[in-house]
């Protein structure tokens, strides 16, 4: 169907461009209307908010194509990066971060979670994002542990024990999705408090509450529980789905967590993922601890052994505990027999980057300062900054340490995945 449009293209290009101009004018007018006092009715605005039609854009040939979201994404990414580096303290003064985290995720399955202002329902959205979060969390914090707690019918219920495997957690969560009754913040906190007070002292205790409800129906004084959590050094954070609730704010302020409220699903995801990198350590924890860890060897192919986690014979694969020689399937974990923490060196390495983050790159204007000649290619991928056919040169950034220039894609890759600056690393090599 759209192929026909291409066939007409050569003849209608002039007309097309004028049409486009007109369209743009109309768009501007429309926007003005929207800005002026929001002259639409509420029901209209529900549709207007999504603005699904704006995702579509015509290209020169009149074909529909999705809007160029790249620049938008880039802008968002830069904002996030700067925010993170500013809240996490300056890069130069390295701050201690809790790398071994014990996190309970409290999921609100009260009546309010069945509301449909998020599609298809708050509960479904929470579950979906929680799943993504758990995966991301273990990816970034391989040494940490997660457990799940649900709130419903005025009670708090532990869904899973605290553990190191994402799959088990997600499976347990998906099996238990139904909501009814009231939420009780106090009960949930008491429960979590009970479990978290048992963990070893080097672990950082955290609670993340995904709250749909606006009220909490408590058996006693929630304020006391907040104080107990504070004393137990449990860092409580809350993500609300609808509005700011005083008690949650109070809880977060007291225990040093963050309180945020989601605007919509994508914002919710963003807020949730902000909890994946480890938070700065609480001052009282700053004393360094030595932790005993085992680095198990991978079992040879074809060796039959009984696995300690599934209690059945398995062929090949798996890891062997260096202390008691028991076979485990996955890392990281705790040895079932001797209780040794078992990790692999990549896990440690992956956690390590949180302590030494790559400094955020400075943005460089495409034309550079007068009298300064800029390299024309990205140091990372060697692609030319100047677009094909003299198009607008794309945004570029430079590392404040080695002053190499990178394109925005490499910038994202360096900060999000690589965690090392290629420029700085190569300099070091050459100097050695």
């Amino acid at each position, binding site marked *: 169907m759209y192929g026909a449009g291409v066939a007409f293209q050569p003849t209608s290009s002039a007309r097309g461009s004028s049409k486009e101009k007109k369209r743009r004018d109309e768009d501007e007018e429309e926007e003005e209307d929207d800005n002026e*006092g929001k*002259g639409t009715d509420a029901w209209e605005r529900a549709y207007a908010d999504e603005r699904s039609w704006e995702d579509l854009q015509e290209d020169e040939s009149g074909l529909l194509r999705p809007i160029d979201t790249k620049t938008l994404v880039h802008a968002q990414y830069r904002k996030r990066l700067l925010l993170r580096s500013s809240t996490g303290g300056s890069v130069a003064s390295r701050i201690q971060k809790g790398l071994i985290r014990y996190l309970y995720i409290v999921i609100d399955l009260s009546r309010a979670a069945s509301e449909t202002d998020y599609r298809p329902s708050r509960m479904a959205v929470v579950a979906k994002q929680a799943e993504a979060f758990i995966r991301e969390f273990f990816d970034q914090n391989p040494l940490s542990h997660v457990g799940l707690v649900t709130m419903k019918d005025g009670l708090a219920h532990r869904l899973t024990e605290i553990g190191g495997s994402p799959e088990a957690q997600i499976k347990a969560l998906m099996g238990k999705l139904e909501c009814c009754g009231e939420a009780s913040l106090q009960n949930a906190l008491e429960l979590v408090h009970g479990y978290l007070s048992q963990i070893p002292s080097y672990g950082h205790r955290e609670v993340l509450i995904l709250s749909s409800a606006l009220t909490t129906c*408590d058996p006693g004084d929630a304020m006391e529980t907040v104080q107990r959590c504070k004393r137990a050094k449990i860092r409580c954070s809350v993500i*609300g789905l*609808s*509005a700011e609730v*005083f008690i*949650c704010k109070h809880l977060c302020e007291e225990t040093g967590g963050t309180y*945020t409220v989601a605007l919509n699903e994508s914002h919710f995801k963003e807020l949730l993922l902000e909890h994946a990198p480890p938070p700065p350590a609480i001052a009282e924890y700053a004393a360094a601890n030595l932790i005993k860890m085992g680095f198990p060897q991978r079992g040879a192919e074809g060796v039959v052994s009984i696995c300690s986690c599934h209690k059945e014979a398995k062929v090949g694969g798996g890891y062997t505990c260096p202390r008691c020689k028991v076979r485990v399937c996955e890392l990281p974990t705790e040895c079932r027999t001797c209780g040794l923490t078992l990790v692999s060196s990549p896990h440690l390495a992956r956690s390590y980057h949180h302590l030494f983050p790559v400094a955020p790159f400075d943005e460089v204007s495409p034309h550079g300062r007068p009298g300064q000649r800029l390299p024309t290619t990205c140091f990372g991928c060697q692609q030319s900054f100047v677009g094909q056919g003299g198009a607008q040169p794309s945004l570029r950034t430079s590392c404040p340490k080695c002053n190499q220039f990178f394109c925005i894609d490499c910038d994202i890759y360096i900060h999000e995945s690589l965690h090392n600056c290629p420029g700085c690393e190569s300099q070091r090599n050459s100097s050695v």
Partner: protein
Amino acid sequence: MKLEVEGLTVYFPYESIYPEQVEYMRELKRALDAGGHVLLEMPTGTGKTAALLSLIVSYSIHKNFKFKLLYCTRTVHEMEKTLAELRLLASHLPTPTSLLALGLSSRKNLCVNPHVLSAQSRDSVDAACRRLTASWVRSLAHDNPQVPTCPFFESYDRAASAGPDALLLPPGVYTLGDLRSFGRSKGWCPYFLARQMIRYANVVVYSYQYLLDPKVATIISKEMQKECVVVFDEAHNIDNVCIEALSVSIRKQTLEARLKATDAGRLRAEYNRLVDGLAQRGNLAITDAWLGNPALPDDILKEAVPGNIRRAEHFLSVLRRLVQYLKSRLLTEKVETENPVNFCAAINSQAGIDQKMLKFCYDRLHSLMLTLEITNTDEFMHIQTVCDFATLVSTYARGFSIIIEPYDERMPTIPDPVLQLSCHDASLAIKPVFDRFQSVIITSGTLSPIDLYPRLLNFSPVISRSFTMSLTRDCICPMVLTRGSDQLPVSTKFDMRSDPGVVRNYGRLLLEMVAAVPDGIVCFFVSYSYMDGIVNSWNEMGILQFSHASIENSTFPMVMLQLATKDVMQHKLVFIETQDVVETTLALDNYRKACDCGRGAVFFSVARGKVAEGIDFDRHYGRLVIMFGVPFQYTLSRILLARLQYLRETFQIKEGDFLTFDALRQAAQCVGRVIRSKADYGMMIFADKRYSRHDKRSKLPGWILSHLHDAHLNLSTDMALHIAREFLRRMAQPYDKTGCGSKKTLLSEEDVMKMSEGAMDTY
């Protein structure tokens, strides 16, 4: 910080300042320079008090303390807040300044004598104090040590007579609590100390009554010089305060109680042969000077007491005749309205008391009681009421009317005769204040429409201005809800209010909102009776559904209403304001607790009630306020009708205009309870179709109107819900407090400098 306002150095106690505060100060400065009266409206939460105090105090430093600041507040609580603000300011003043500021309140709030304080009411504390400190009691005690006196007063008196008064209290800012503890530590009576020290104080904070009520004003505020600056804070109801100060109502009990008192008095009068009843005024000790003369014109004060009531027994018989006459008037079966001139004439012909005698009733009683050395004044309340009445009715020919109602309009079966002398003209009580003082500043968060106040109070302000709030974000969200979810209009208009459809729609609105709004919600109803009715019917319908769940399930409205009451309780606890103060205080306490602990709560309250006037529902204590209906006054009330007529005839204010103005200022006052600072946020729902009409809406204060978008003018419940959800999400996002670029809302010292320079450049 320090800033320059048109050449005047202003000391401001905070590090940064809002732009509207600078504006406010500028206007104030101009007004002080011009030496006239001002009317200023600035929204609550923008630091009105701080701006006001720092400008005036700085101004008076500039003028070497040549004038006093008399700051009038409505409640003791506000007095304390103001003094706290003042103390902060005092700590930022340049060091050699000696500022003396103090609060003055009744004996009940200031007394430190445990025996006196054990009395319950304000009047009995006053009486208990007099019993210990009156000059004759003290002279008796001088001869006979058995007679109890107040040790605090005695030592104060010794200190006062020993040295110059001005040295008694070192400069500083004294709240009521400070005065009490100062009094305790020195062993001096704080009340009399404060009374004495207001002469030397630079700032005096006290209640409206001390200036407006002529009985009190003559004693307390007599000595204030003309250069004083008078501030009436939270003055949106000032006309009502003025009217109340001059209105008297007499019930049957009043007259009966009075007779007994007179008898007792007469017995003692005979006992004291010495009584000859001539004017006792003049060299009275400070403790004896109690309520002054309510008559305002000076010529009356200077006139001598007429001869035929100079003798005590004659005066008593006059009083007895007057009471007899009033009693006979109270026996009437129908409502009567009369003007003072006719009333005096009737008294003259039927009881044989001429106007002049009536005029002096108050004075004469006063001197009689002094002569009789009566200290338990609280028992003589009623006789004073009657004398007040007599003096007022004979003094004013215009602006008053006498209304006799044999029963309460709402309960015609119960006879409860009441004779009311109601004042219609607010300007009468405030006129002496305007005349005497150079600058009177009337300010409040809601003074709209601002042009009506000068007419009501009959003065011409040199500046009247309404300021808006500069906000970094739209933190208030007013909405006008005209329809229920079924698109039928909602209103508390008389013909619609009992319609089950309207009741249901209101219930539905509340239900939707409790589910969507966190923490506290405040609902205001137009009257107690309406609140009782609607809450009852919500509840009743819920109960109906509850017990007949299986049978009535099919009827749609029932299901709705069942939701309304049962589900409200599921989301929030419900608290209700009653006419009992203790109960209401308890309810408020629990309401706050429920908001704190996250359970959430709804508070049902009444416009014009105590809660609507004095209690703040800031932050999470009030995220939403719903105003059910337009809070018109009870329009069939005789007093109101008479006042409306008077306003139309005298000031050419139309009845409708005044009623709407009065209703809308109450509504604005109610919804204004939720915003007390800029960091706060809250929604306001005006749930009545009449609010969408221009004549009503335009009378709302500017700071509400500027946030009332056209799209929010004609909402139904579901639309309002959508907006509410969106608003709450938006408000929960972190924001930048100082604002940025041109929309700066928090100015530092340099910013102010720049601003004033910029202003210079443009001129």
